[in-house]
């Protein structure tokens, strides 16, 4: 018997296996082609660039105009100069000089239009991204908690790009449209009879397109969907390679992936058929239009009722006839995508900012390091309070520990002290002032934080410790020394300049925790909030951390979510939370001597205070 095979076991007829996400991308990718609201919002972002934009549009129009003029100049050269024989040479020179003038204008207009449009579109993209990014720095934490970063990132990247593409292509589409109309008008003006007859080919293309478009679009969307499914499956195999290899899914996954990839090829070949089938049609119609000009125009020339130059000009116009129509069809799907992207972007920008500075908010600078909760009630969803009537105070220099089972509201208390949210009722006071009356900036400087999972940024160790504080290098080093991080930092070849890969994966958990302590120390705030680490740290590291922690706590007011008895013993006050209420409060000695939850757990030498509810 080989391992993993169990003959007696019931088996499915088909494996319970898929690769990649099973969600259709159609709804995500496409929207209405025209959305007044989205367009209005985009217009708002273009206001600062309105001059450039207007100039750009003007450039497009001039460019198109000069393009239209070129066959006309050739026509004039033929009909006015060449027919005159040698007398026409001077006139020809003048016309050629005129031609040179026109192409020079064309050159300048071309430079201006593309330059301006390209730049404005670039600005639009970067401005939209910045606006979103900035907004995300201030929107409610509730929104950030609920939203996956990946989805925000796709808005910050793909969606803004779709709008850039949209702006660029729509301005050039104006040029295409004008060119199309221009050709029609010029043809009819040059010779109404020949013009009308030549233009009769155009409806054929429109008719065919009407039949072609819905099918083709279906094929295009399908092709795009299969691509995204295939790429999704590839991404999954990259991200989940550990699970794939450890659970031996390579062969099965490869088979499933091959199915997806095959469908992808099939869909793309079909889409390619739809694209290319139009080529003979457009070429044939161009040929037909030329034939009409040759036969009818030629007879008119023979009659003497049409100048031969007009015929030549017609032949030139007809060559360019279908170009604008082609690019205008592409424009449609660009617009669809842009509207969907715009929706998503403005959705983010419209997330309300709930916590704002009051008009005359004050600075906390110079106030004492104290935190007080007065009858605070708070929740994330209406009618479901997470904290009810919480009151406690940590005076300057005191350490208050919060313990309680998962979901008892410890983290919410920390969030409120930072004013990540506003309370429903009651008051949170820092330094004796209601947090709603002080500037968020000074609040952030007044309180520093160490999270359970130390969070580092890419960049050097120095930058990570300094972070937003603007501290001198020497202060950074002093802080690192104080928390005991200096030794391991200087052991790196680049010392403080060591670059942290991917948020510090090249450091151990304990080392990362030390850096985040040093960061808090450099910030030098009177109040420290600490979510004590439970997991991922072995006992050796824990010792080092405890040592660093005691250094960090010196002379500071601290609010700690505590998991370890060692921390709690020395706390000035321990608050036991349960279901959002304070059930006990006092020093370790007082609580241990009592007969409440805390003393019971203390007697049991319980594994972790997080599990209070589980067994109590």
């Amino acid at each position, binding site marked *: 018997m080989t391992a993993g095979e169990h003959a007696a076991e019931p088996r499915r007829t088909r494996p319970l296996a898929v690769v990649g996400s099973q969600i259709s991308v159609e709804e995500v990718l496409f929207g209405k082609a025209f959305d007044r609201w989205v367009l209005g919002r985009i217009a708002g972002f273009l206001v600062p660039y309105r001059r450039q934009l207007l100039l750009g549009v003007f450039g497009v129009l001039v460019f198109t105009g000069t393009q239209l003029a070129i066959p006309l100049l050739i026509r004039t050269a033929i009909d006015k100069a060449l027919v005159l024989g040698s007398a026409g040479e001077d006139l020809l020179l003048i016309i050629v000089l005129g031609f040179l003038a026109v192409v020079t204008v064309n050159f300048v207009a071309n430079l201006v239009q593309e330059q301006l449009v390209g730049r404005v579109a670039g600005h639009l993209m970067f401005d939209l991204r910045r606006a979103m990014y900035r907004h995300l720095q201030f929107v409610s934490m509730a929104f950030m908690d609920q939203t996956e970063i990946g989805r925000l990132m796709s808005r910050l990247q793909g969606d803004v790009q779709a709008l850039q593409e949209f702006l660029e292509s729509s301005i050039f589409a104006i040029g295409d449209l004008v060119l199309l109309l221009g050709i029609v008008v010029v043809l009819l003006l040059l010779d109404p009879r020949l013009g009308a007859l030549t233009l009769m080919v155009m409806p054929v293309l429109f008719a065919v397109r009407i039949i072609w478009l819905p099918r083709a679009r279906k094929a295009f969307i399908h092709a795009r969907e299969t691509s995204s499914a295939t790429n999704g499956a590839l991404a999954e195999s990259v991200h989940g390679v550990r699970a794939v290899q450890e659970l031996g899914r390579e062969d099965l996954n490869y088979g499933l992936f091959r199915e997806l*990839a095959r469908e992808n090829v099939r869909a793309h070949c079909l889409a390619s058929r739809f694209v290319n089938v139009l080529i003979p049609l457009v070429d044939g119609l161009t040929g037909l239009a030329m034939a009409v000009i040759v036969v009818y125009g030629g007879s008119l020339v023979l009659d003497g009722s049409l100048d031969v130059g007009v015929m*030549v000009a017609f032949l030139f116009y007809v060559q360019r006839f279908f170009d604008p129509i082609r690019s205008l069809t592409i424009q449609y799907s660009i617009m669809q995508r842009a509207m969907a992207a715009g929706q998503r972007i403005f959705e983010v920008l419209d997330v309300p900012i709930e916590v704002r500075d009051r008009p005359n908010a004050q600075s906390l600078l110079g106030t004492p390091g104290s935190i007080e909760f007065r009858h605070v009630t708070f929740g994330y969803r209406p009618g479901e309070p997470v904290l009810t009537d919480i009151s406690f105070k940590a005076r300057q220099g005191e350490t208050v520990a919060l313990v309680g089972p998962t979901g008892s509201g410890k983290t919410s208390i920390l969030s409120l002290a930072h004013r990540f949210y506003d309370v429903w009722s009651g008051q949170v006071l820092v330094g004796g002032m209601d947090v709603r009356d002080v500037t968020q900036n000074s609040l*952030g400087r007044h309180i520093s934080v160490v999270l359970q999972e130390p969070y580092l940024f890419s960049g050097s160790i120095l930058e990570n410790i300094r972070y937003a504080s603007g501290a001198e290098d020497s202060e950074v080093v002093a802080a690192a020394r104080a928390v005991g991080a200096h030794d391991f930092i200087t052991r790196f070849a680049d010392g403080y300049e060591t670059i942290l890969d991917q948020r510090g994966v090249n450091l151990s958990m304990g080392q990362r925790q030390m850096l985040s302590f040093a960061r808090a120390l450099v910030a030098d705030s009177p109040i420290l909030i600490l979510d004590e680490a439970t997991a991922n740290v072995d006992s050796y590291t824990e010792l080092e951390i405890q040592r660093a922690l005691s250094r960090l706590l010196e002379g500071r007011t601290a609010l700690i979510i505590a998991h370890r008895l060692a921390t709690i013993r020395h706390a000035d006050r321990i608050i036991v939370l349960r279901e959002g209420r304070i059930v006990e409060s006092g020093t370790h000695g007082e609580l241990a001597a009592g007969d409440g939850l805390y003393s019971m757990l203390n007697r049991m030498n319980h594994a972790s205070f997080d599990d209070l509810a589980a067994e109590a």
Partner: protein
Amino acid sequence: MSSTVSSSGRVDTDPTAHTLPYVSRLDGRVLWRISELAFRHPYRMALAMVATALGASFQLFVPQFLGRAVDQAQGLLAGAAAAGVQTEAVDALLQTAMLLVAVSLLRGVFTMVQNYQGEVVGHFIAHHLRLDYYRKLQSLSLSWHDQVHTGDLMTRGILDIEGVRMFVTTGMLRVILLAILIGGGFVILFRIDQVLALVAFGFVPFVGVSASIARIRLRDIWLQLQNELSVLTRAMEENLGGIRVVRAFAAQAHELARFDRISRRALGISHRRVALFVRNTAQMNFAFFLTMGAVLWIGGVKTIEGTLTLGELTEFLAFMAILQMPIRQIGWMSNSVARASTCGGRLFSVLDLAPSIADPPGARGLEVSEGVLRYENVDFSYPAAAADARTLSDVSFEARPGQIIGIVGPPGSGKSTIAQLVGRYYDVTGGRITIDGQDIRTISLESLRSAVSIIQQDAFLFTASISHNVAYGNPWAEGTKIERSAAVAQLHDHIMSLSTGYDTLVGERGLSLSGGQRQRMSIARSILPDSTVLVLDDSTAAVDAATEARLQDAIADISRTRAVIIIAHRLSSLRHADMILFLEHGRIVERGSREELVALGGRFAELHRLQAASPETRP
């Protein structure tokens, strides 16, 4: 995106681990390999090439017929008095018109065939590469995956394959098209008027060369821009991921300044790109129109002098109009070649990697009789580590079904490496590891890995239902079995409390699970395939203690039929361990039951005392 913390400090260097090269390179061997892939479809390629040649040839006729029509319409104007001549002239016009329609249509048909076949071959190449790439990524060792950026792998898998794909249509076939259009057109015009032909083609070298140079420079700027944008992406991702830290330190202004710095740089590059592109296209247009003006002037004078007919002048001008597009495409073409070369090079560099761990020739499946895992004097050092820096030295132990082995030791003592070696994610450098007497290097990887389950610290959730996720290692498992595994992992109750139960979608856009729940998912997943050896590598760190206790009981229960190895930080995780190995500097320094080790008063006893001081350990 949350990243897992791998506790083992693997240092291994790989030449392909570096990110995008900044400059496009031309590599003949890469292009040759791509061409070889294309000619695996010889009939389609032959058809595409013939169609390209024919399409280009038919296009060459169009200006000639246009010129002829103008002459027919005009040249006869003078002697058009006689009615008979006029009908004759109309007949001639009609004939030319029909030829024009026919030639245009044929050109269209052949262009269609060219494009379609070219694109199909391109898609086939892409398909082929995509499958190879997928398979290769799955087979490359985890140590390799640890070093490369996932974003970089995705770029190769999407953009680079796209770059190679486009090579057939915009690279190979376009060469033929351009050669015929430019060569044929020049011959035709040269026969009409040598001087004028030279004038008319005057813009070709200028535009061709400047377009090629500009395209390749644009590509390099584009690569720079991509690079800058990926820096921006990383900055944004980190900011959003660490938004609590950002806000807690009131660092929004700091973060915005950082964002602006990178963003401004990127915008600057983007502007440079626009400027270069615009300058280049505008210059090309201008060169073209200037030449056209010269042709109009010189040709006009010649026409006035009577050495050139009006039709011939029209033919010249029409030719230029036709050539305008393809000449510009020289730029696209050279870009496409450069792109294919760069992209292909990067793809092949991955495809050519040999997995460091592979089946030996003639590997047999593992034969499991008792299910005994044995470490026999195992030495190990990581590939890039210094010769004397051994991670494991002389490690020997045995694990048999019904037994739980616990492994503890300070960080860096080699605990996780023991797990990695059991699954043969690395090969031992000395000694051997056997299962029922068979050296794991002699058996097929597939049979080894189905016999050994190593539970990860953090489970990757696949975007699929919970049952899909639990059954990941054995998708043929029935529902009851899935539920049993989830129950052992203490996950069943939570799943049943969800309104859609096991059908609930998790992963991207699905329900998100907490760290502890993900670890339990990982456990459920790994115990489902009924493997012979089960290794828990600190797999319960994020699970709360009460749940962990129940989980341990359940695992002790299933350990009756398999050997279990538990690697842990917390001694509480080792409650059921029959034997504990204490590892230090890669050596087993103490071994025995918990009581024996405590009584021994050595390293373990010290750790035991340490942990007892914190409330993490149960007595």
